């Protein structure tokens, strides 16, 4: 097991390097630069800016310098657009925010989604099943950029219960709407996945055997059905978790949470090379890490899988 993990980490390093090289080149290929502005900057000032940020160097020198700083100093450089902040600072500031509402949304989505899905499967074709399927289809066609304004209309404008946005260090009032908006559609997908995979497991041989032995329904479901039924769900959860904790631009946009999601999108639009690279590497590293965790979970859930 340990050697498997070590091997995976060894593969992760070249993967990340390839990611860095590709994103770096693609980014510099895009038309426009961080300093392209409505009012064209006079050439002498542009030269000063390029000298300050090292853009006057040949591309491969910039790339090597960048990799060197990242690898040896863990320094992602200064932001090209946010003049008095470094990329490390922007990520250190925004990522905890995103992580907080992301993890909470993930927990809510998984707990509620799995429970609903499992109940719907167990009581197949009952009113509970119909309601769950109905809600999950409804929730899936209601994307978060529609949910967010509706939530604010209801809870802020009409009822006056919750603040319409902000973060304030993550107080609960400021978390409720972002978590609902972010978790709902994932929750619906998880519920539907759990339901269909649970239905399949419930009709499988080992469950029939357990029933025939006279095992109580509770034990059958919790000990024998739920675990194998989670296999397809877990493979969905890996990328979902990464997507949720690396930021949702919609949540940051509508709720002014200050997370990393909006910063990432703006970095691309602003051609903030260093910030875009920093967040790309973060997302890449997390994706690699969580796909490893998912693979380890597989082995735990299904003993037939050996690493």
């Amino acid at each position: 097991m340990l050697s498997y993990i070590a091997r995976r980490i060894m593969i992760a390093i070249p993967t990340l390097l390839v990611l860095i090289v590709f994103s770096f080149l693609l980014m510099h290929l895009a038309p426009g630069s961080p300093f392209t502005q409505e009012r064209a900057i006079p050439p002498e000032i542009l030269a000063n800016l390029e000298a300050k940020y090292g853009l006057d160097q040949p591309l491969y020198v910039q790339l090597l310098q960048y990799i060197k700083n990242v690898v040896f100093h863990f320094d992602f450089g200064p932001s090209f657009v946010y003049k008095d902040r470094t990329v490390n600072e922007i990520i250190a500031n925004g990522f905890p925010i995103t992580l907080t509402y992301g993890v909470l949304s993930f927990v809510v989505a998984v707990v509620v989604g799995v429970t609903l899905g499992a109940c719907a499967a167990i009581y197949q074709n009952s009113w509970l099943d119909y309601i769950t399927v109905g809600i999950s289809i409804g929730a899936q066609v209601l994307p978060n950029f529609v949910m967010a304004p509706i939530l604010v209309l209801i809870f802020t404008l009409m009822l006056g219960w919750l603040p319409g946005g902000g973060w304030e260090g993550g107080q609960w009032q400021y978390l409720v709407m972002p978590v609902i908006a972010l978790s709902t559609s994932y929750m619906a997908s998880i519920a539907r996945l759990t339901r269909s995979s649970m239905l399949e497991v419930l009709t499988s041989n080992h469950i029939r055997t357990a029933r025939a032995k006279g095992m109580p329904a509770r034990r059958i479901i919790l000990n024998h059905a739920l675990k194998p039924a989670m296999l397809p769900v877990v493979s969905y959860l890996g990328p979902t978790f990464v997507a949720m904790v690396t930021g949702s631009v919609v949540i940051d946009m509508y709720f002014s949470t200050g997370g990393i999601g909006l910063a990432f999108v703006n970095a691309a639009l602003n051609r903030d090379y260093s910030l875009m690279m920093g967040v790309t590497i973060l997302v890449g590293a997390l994706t690699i890490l969580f796909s490893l965790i998912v693979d380890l979970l597989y082995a735990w859930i299904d003993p037939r899988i050996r690493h």
Partner: protein
Amino acid sequence: MKKNWLIATALSAFIAFPALAETRVINGEELAADQTFIYRILDDFKTLDPQLNSDVSGSEVMRDLFEGLMNEKADGSLEPGVAESYTVSDDGKTYTFHLRDALWSDGKPVTAGDFVYAWQRLANPETASEYAWYMELMGIENASAVVKGEADPSELGVKAIDDKTFEVKLINPLPYFPAMTVHSSTFPSPQWAIEEHGQNWTKPGNMVSNGAYVLTEYAPGEKLVRERNVNYWNNEETILDKSVALIINDEAQALTRYLAGELHKTEVPTGQYPRLKEQYPDQATAVPYSCSYFYWLNMSDKGPEALKDVRVRKALSYAVNRDVIVDRIMQGGQTAAYNLTHTATANFTTPDIPYASWTQQERVAKAKELLAEAGYGPQNPLELKISYNTSEGHKKIAIAVSQFWKAIGVTAVLENTEWKVHTENMQDKNYEVARYAWCGDYNEASTYLDLLTSYSGHNNAGFNNADYDALMAESKTIADPSELYTQAEAILAEEMPFIPMYHYTNVNMFKPNLRGWPLENVMRTWYSRDLYLVKD
């Protein structure tokens, strides 16, 4: 029980002796107890450093945190800032500013040396400020050489005669020079704080400032809070205690939060002004704002052959029905434009542009005639590409324009690109027709008209007219250039290097209890210290 009695006694005392509650009254209105003004901004601040800032929302914060030589009154005229007065030499090239006794937020005196440091810092290539050209625009001696790195920053034409006297030397006399010191890039900066903290000097706690407010909190992507500076020279006159900018990216969301009472000011989303004005007549306002919306016509060598013909350029402009654009699309009180400079600009008389007074039928008839003369028609149809950056508003206007052109037999192909791509194409003159907008840097017509000089870096049309250049050069040397500006506009109407569309308005919702907002200021220059809130 006892507690209730106490409250009752306290209440009756309060009612009987209102003076005890220390109510403050201004212009016959009682002030609200909580003097916190909350407003919305679209995007996060890119920097809080006065010399590095290039954003409008950043400038608003800079004007609260710092104070330059001159301030702007609501009507756009100047009033003393840190400079109590100034004198100009006979040749108009040397300005001497006499500074008042003012303090930085850490208690140090504001000196002429702080201005020298800030101005040298702005021009210094090491600072790499995107606004370094402002020193060149102000025409300060050696500014260009310093920016280019050919001269040491200490050679810039600014000098501290003593702690209270700041001298500036210009290359040429510039009548509106004092007005340019309202700009935030010319604000003084605290050398000791910048040297101690480096780029972190703008963080709350590190920042030292000399304006009416100090920075107390900044949560990127969320909000920025500034609070009263007790060391400010005019602190006694300041009423507002706190000014809070909330960063809300989505304007509809901001409007909902405004309606829920979370904001005192927010922008009205495009097209919603008529509805909001009807529903909230005392809150929805539309006032002139110094920006001009137009379509560049690429008449450079890289542009299409057709646009080199002035008859074609005129025809394209005449065909556009501005009234439809302002009344049906924008719907925010914008005014139809037939010239470049915003009509509300100070000391600017809108010239008589002939086609402005024609009916639209007359314009279309004339456009068809001109186009036929130029050799375009059913046999030789004209097709042009309109480029615009991705936005609902720009798209609607481009579609409308394509319909107007259809009426004169011109086919328009629409092309939308992301902002940076659009900008780069325009600056490389790699376009045919492109949407653009220009906002005034200061309240004077040259901020618009300089754009079309052949040597301007922003002249995307490639317009090159010797008479025009001569007029603009002459305008810099005389006390009242307004007549020359009128002539310059006449040349533009005759040559049509762009199609004027409309002049901007600033369309906002203001809570009814907010006072002191300078609605008449076309530059949208406002200071928190002029604002206050009254009791509902």
